[in-house]
């Protein structure tokens, strides 16, 4: 049984002006998947920050560089069963991510910048970075509503 179905695929350029278009489409996709208004905003923020990081850091602000975004509905294992989730994979061909920077920074250190990664981690259930064949891959997973185990369990 195929446990991964493609919902949407986007081919973008590293132009900050495309971010609002992605947010609009993603907000509607998240709503169709049954996320609450607050969760829709969280999904949109997480993906927007991931794209912002690619544009600013992987491509150092260079426009017209390629970014692919894949959205799948998947099943992830949980206590021997499968639960439904939205998987988002972002691919770019920019500078390899500096793993030392992936840990983020202490938020008590009040200064501009460095918040994007924190927002990604806070808004998603899984965040995985990898680098293969000259491409950065960021995999984000957000479990669909009514699938999450009760808090504290």
């Amino acid at each position: 049984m195929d446990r991964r179905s493609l919902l949407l695929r986007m081919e973008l350029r590293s132009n900050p002006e495309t971010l609002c278009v992605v947010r609009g489409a993603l907000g509607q996709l998240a709503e169709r998947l049954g996320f609450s208004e607050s969760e829709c905003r969280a999904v949109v923020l997480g993906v927007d920050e991931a794209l912002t990081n690619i544009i600013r850091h992987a491509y150092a602000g260079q426009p017209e560089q390629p970014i692919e975004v894949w959205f799948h509905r998947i099943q992830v294992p949980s206590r021997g069963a499968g639960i439904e989730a939205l998987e988002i994979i972002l691919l770019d061909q920019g500078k390899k991510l500096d793993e030392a920077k992936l840990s983020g920074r202490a938020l008590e250190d009040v200064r501009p910048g460095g918040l994007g990664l924190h927002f990604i981690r806070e808004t998603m259930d899984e965040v995985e970075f990898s680098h293969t064949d000259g491409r950065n891959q960021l995999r984000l997973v957000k479990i669909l509503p009514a699938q999450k185990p009760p808090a504290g369990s």
Partner: protein
Amino acid sequence: MQISARHLDKMTVFDISGDIDLSTSPELRKPLLHELRELRTPRVILNLRAVRYIDSSGVASLVEGLKASRDVGSRFILFGLNTTVREVLQLSKLVRIFEICENEEQAVAP
């Protein structure tokens, strides 16, 4: 994003609307820093009621404004935070560092 300024007695209110993101945050940052660093306006107030979206670069611009205000001894006040803006500021864990008012009347009060 749109931004406009109202100059009152020893204070300026910026009315901001739309999305504050990577592409638009410089349009917020520039007039804010000018108002604080160059004009040294004693009280700078941001009306965020019509802000539809804010990301980390927008929050970073607000933090820069706050720091500039501290450098010159001005007050830097936010008001009209809707659910979207409040959620992002809370997520940033920086919400406590800002002076936040419920409405403009409070923000301009002596």
